[in-house]
């Protein structure tokens, strides 16, 4: 099927098991697919926009209610939907960081957190990871002390990933936030891999800001995300415009500068809203996701020479493995070189491993069924056996 202008209809998720590390949690629900068709027109959600004329206040479709529900679900006080988690980092950094200010990041922070700090003129101060690729409260405390000595003051903001994108490790966010708060550092919870896949309680975690990614973990179209904040921080990040035109004397009501007025509109927003009931339900069953991941990991580790680089047992489904001692040993002599591996998986209906990768690679089993997990596990073992690798019984 063609969508016009040379665009083929995408059928990856209908034809394959998709284990792409960044795509797994963003696969749409059936309701979201219907919603984005119904609300694809540009300003579709604005049909019933009434005073005070701001996106998060629209009652039909129930956008205002959705904002309240998302804030409550995350145990925060207010929320705004954003065009991606990165725009939430940007809004928070722009509010709190002035040029030359030190900002706490980690050795495993996503690049968009760095860019948000850069744009605000801040100075990145990374908490190093330990040998197990974990960010600890002890390391955070040491880094804050180091920053205080160097800058003569504490960092003005901390951006901490609960689950990092490199290893999918679950870090002690609550412990780090506690340490940061002892130095009055407002702390942002980056839940790009948790909000929408796992239960997240912002207050219990000690977060001032909770950021989630719609397209990464909330079964929503891109670009979408959420910024939820405490009542105290809402007054700062969601402050309303004060500007006035010098000639026209125009003012702009309750529009919020950090949100650039109205934020996430149309199909992306309604897609998020349509998936939300499903997302609220699925986060209660993350144990099943871990069980599926365990089935796949056990199969991979049965292939001699395969190592896991993420923490093990797994606490998240995003996983980094090292197959230098297994699948990579075949690549050199194979006619397809390193591409044989992803090619063999593609032939078995598995998508998402970077073509050519046979050494260190990531996958994410989130959202697959138990039957698909078994199929995936067997497929990895089958590719190993077909290529003469030793597999433990």
């Amino acid at each position, binding site marked *: 099927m063609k969508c016009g202008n040379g665009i083929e209809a995408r059928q990856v*998720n*209908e*034809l*394959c*098991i998709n284990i792409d590390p960044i795509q797994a949690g963003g*696969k749409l*629900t*059936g309701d979201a697919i219907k919603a984005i068709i119904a609300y694809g027109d540009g300003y579709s959600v604005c049909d019933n926009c009434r005073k005070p004329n701001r996106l998060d206040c629209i009652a039909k479709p129930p956008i205002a209610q959705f904002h309240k529900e998302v804030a409550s679900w995350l145990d925060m006080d207010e929320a705004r939907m954003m065009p991606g988690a990165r725009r939430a980092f940007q809004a928070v950094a722009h509010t709190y960081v002035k040029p030359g200010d030190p900002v706490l990041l980690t050795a495993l922070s996503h690049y968009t957190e760095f860019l948000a700090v850069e744009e605000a003129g801040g100075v990145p101060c990374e908490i190093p990871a330990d040998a197990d690729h974990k960010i600890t409260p002890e390391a955070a405390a040491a880094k804050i002390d180091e920053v205080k000595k160097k800058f003569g003051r504490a960092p003005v903001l901390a951006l901490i990933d609960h689950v990092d994108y490199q290893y999918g490790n679950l870090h002690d966010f609550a412990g780090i936030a506690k340490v940061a708060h002892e130095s009055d550092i407002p702390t942002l919870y980056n839940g790009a891999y948790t909000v929408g896949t796992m239960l997240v309680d912002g207050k219990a975690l000690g977060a001032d800001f909770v950021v989630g990614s719609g397209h990464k973990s909330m079964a929503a179209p891109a670009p979408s995300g959420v910024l939820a904040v405490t009542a105290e921080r809402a007054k700062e990040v969601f402050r309303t415009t004060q500007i006035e035109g010098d000639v026209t004397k125009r003012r702009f009501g309750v529009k919020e500068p950090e949100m650039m007025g109205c934020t996430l509109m149309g199909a992306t927003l309604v897609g998020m809203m349509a998936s939300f009931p499903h997302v609220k339900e699925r986060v209660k069953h993350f144990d099943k996701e871990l069980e599926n991941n365990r089935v796949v990991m056990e199969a991979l580790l049965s292939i001699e020479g395969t190592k896991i680089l993420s923490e093990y047992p797994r606490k998240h489904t995003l996983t980094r493995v090292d197959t230098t001692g297994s699948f990579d040993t075949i690549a050199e002599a194979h006619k397809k070189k390193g591409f044989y591996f992803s090619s063999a998986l593609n032939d*078995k*209906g*598995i998508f998402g491993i970077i073509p050519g990768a046979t050494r260190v690679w990531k996958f994410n089993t989130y959202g697959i*069924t138990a039957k*698909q997990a078994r*199929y995936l596990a067997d497929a990895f073992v089958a590719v190993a056996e077909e290529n003469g690798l030793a597999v433990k019984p």
Partner: protein
Amino acid sequence: MILRETAPGHELDEKQKAEAARLLENLERQVGSLKAEMLK
């Protein structure tokens, strides 16, 4: 969604077959309505 849940083999169990049958019947009914409305 059934296609997604059963990829890549698309071997439907009895429950999924029943759901697929229900959805296809709905679709056929909707196509019938469109034919009746648009081609009258």
